[in-house]
């Protein structure tokens, strides 16, 4: 195990960042007409959603990296986000107007499951070496992305609203959204913590895992299902936010080593910090216009991905 460089300091700094973001979200910005309402019905749920979504995305990325044994796996890059978006856009087009978040979640789940299935098929032992997996995932991302864009083009009235959403936005998050995300994150987090021991074995390869009594296929199905659930709920609430899933697990492993259980709290906190800080920046940088959060995470994440790719 690599030496865990500064585990506690990073936990503390991540938590500090979250609190800082919380302060700005809750107390910063122009005062509103109804401060009570604004605080409890707009700002607090928004902040909590950001925190929970960040944690969920960080966890989802970690899970996918574990399942595919590929350090570059990420919900956005493997097409999970995009297929979920596609289904939601389809729902919006067919259903018209704003459907209930529960329906959006169902649609996102369905869409995400398609990608999840493809990922499972592709991560079967030896079938897809790591780069090919990424490229296959990219193709799916591409496919569903193009499909979504095409569908959006056919629905010009809501074009910009939808366009903004498809890049990830947290405005308009309600308590229901927060509960949905939290409701998925909590069990996912608990399950992953409990199963971590078994899942770690997957890192050794399918044959080795079988030799140690673990069924790699079943475990992978578990992991990918959890990842898809987390991504789907995030997409349903805030649209696709990419790159969180690749930055956070790596930074966390840098600080905490490869042991999944040790990394977990750090991943959750760092993810929360990344998204909540990005949300604050998204609101303030080009005030009063709002930058989609996904754009900010991409602007930070893509260069990081670039850097990681150089070290391959």
């Amino acid at each position, binding site marked *: 195990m690599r030496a865990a460089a500064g585990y506690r300091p990073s936990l503390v700094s991540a938590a500090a960042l979250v609190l800082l973001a919380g302060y700005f979200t809750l107390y910063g910005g122009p005062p509103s007409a109804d401060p009570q309402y604004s605080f409890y019905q707009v700002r607090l749920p928004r902040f909590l959603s950001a925190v929970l979504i960040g944690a969920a995305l960080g966890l989802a990325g970690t899970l996918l990296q574990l399942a595919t044994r590929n350090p*570059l796996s990420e919900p956005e*890059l493997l097409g999970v986000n995009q297929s979920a978006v596609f289904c939601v856009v389809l729902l919006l087009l067919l259903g018209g107007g704003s459907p209930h978040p529960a329906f959006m979640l169902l649609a996102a789940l369905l869409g995400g499951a398609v990608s999840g299935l493809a990922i499972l098929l592709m991560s079967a032992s030896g079938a897809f*070496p790591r*780069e*090919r997996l*990424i*490229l*296959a995932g*990219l*193709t*799916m991302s*591409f*496919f569903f992305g*193009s*499909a979504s*864009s*095409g*569908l*959006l*083009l*056919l629905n010009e009235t809501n*074009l*910009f609203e939808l*366009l*903004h959403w498809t*890049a990830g936005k947290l405005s308009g998050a309600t308590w229901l959204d927060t509960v949905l995300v939290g409701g998925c994150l909590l069990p996912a987090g608990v399950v992953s913590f409990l199963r971590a021991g078994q899942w770690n074995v997957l890192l050794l390869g399918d044959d080795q895992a079988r030799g140690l009594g673990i069924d790699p296929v079943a475990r992978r199905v578990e992991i990918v299902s959890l990842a898809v659930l987390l991504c789907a709920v995030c997409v349903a609430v805030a649209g696709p936010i*990419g*790159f969180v899933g690749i930055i956070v697990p790596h930074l966390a492993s840098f600080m905490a080593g490869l042991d999944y259980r040790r990394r977990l709290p750090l991943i959750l906190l760092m993810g929360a910090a990344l998204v909540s800080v990005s949300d604050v920046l998204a609101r303030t940088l*080009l005030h009063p*216009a709002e*930058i*989609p959060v*996904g*754009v900010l995470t*991409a*602007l930070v*994440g*893509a*260069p990081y*991905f*670039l850097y990681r*790719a*150089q070290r*391959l």
Partner: protein
Amino acid sequence: MKRQFVFRFVGVLSLLALTLVLSLSFGATDALSPGAVVDQILTGQGVVYLFRLPRALTAMMVGLCFAISGLLLQSLTRNPLASPDLLGVTAGGGLATVIAILVGGALAGSYITWIAFLGASVVAAIIWVLGRGASAQRFILTGVALSALAHAVITLLLVTYAPSAAEAMIWLKGSLFGRGWVHVKLLLPWVGFVCLGGVAVAYQANPLILGPTVATTLGIRLSVLRPCLWLLSVAGAAAAVAVSGTIGFVGLIVPHVARRLAGPDLRVSIPFSGLLGAFFVLLADTVGRVLSPPLEIPAGLICAFLGAPYFGYLLVKGKTDI
């Protein structure tokens, strides 16, 4: 060319001709008889001449450019998954174009293709510098990261400058809606460049499939050949994206099909690729127009719908060894 190739070439050419006829005859307005079509072309009047013909020509040229660009990239990188979209070259061109539109307005500006070429070249140069000498995988992943970055910036611009971004957005997503003679004129020199350049480098680039070391021992000057291939590929992709936005998969899939039909010799597969690309995009555009008028399904969407499953099939069947 060997006899089988000639047959296949003629076959694809016929398909293209057929699609062209269909494209000119059918559309959102009345369906025309072939006689009326010819009449309108010759007299320079009517919906065929004013709208359908230039649009069809643009579609074919865009398809040709993307397809040849993809084939050259795949030969250059020895990676069957390379394509101008994946590597961010088209995204770079798209970004430059979006900036140009937002700053300068009107898509019909005659500098648009050059601006796109500039943007695409910048991305290509970055990929080249960062990815050079690296494994093919790293090369691709570098391109992926740059593509993501460029797309993020594009989205940022579109969302921030919402009102004037309408045009940019609709254009960007890959459609041939409203493309006319002005676009044909824009593309023509680039198409000429790519075709002539392609023919010129085809034989010289053939040994690349044996790998850079063997190619060098056969007397190939990689330091000259590679930049040429890059240049041609970027030029093709940039010109196409400036005119039609990102029509994905053409640069990725068509070269594969072309290689299966034409064999590994670039002197044969480059013309094949161009022809197939023209056919594919024209078909997609035609289908998109006639499926349920007056609604127009963007060509990019249809290409994605047709292309991705086929590509998935290629991947699964292992016909895309890296």
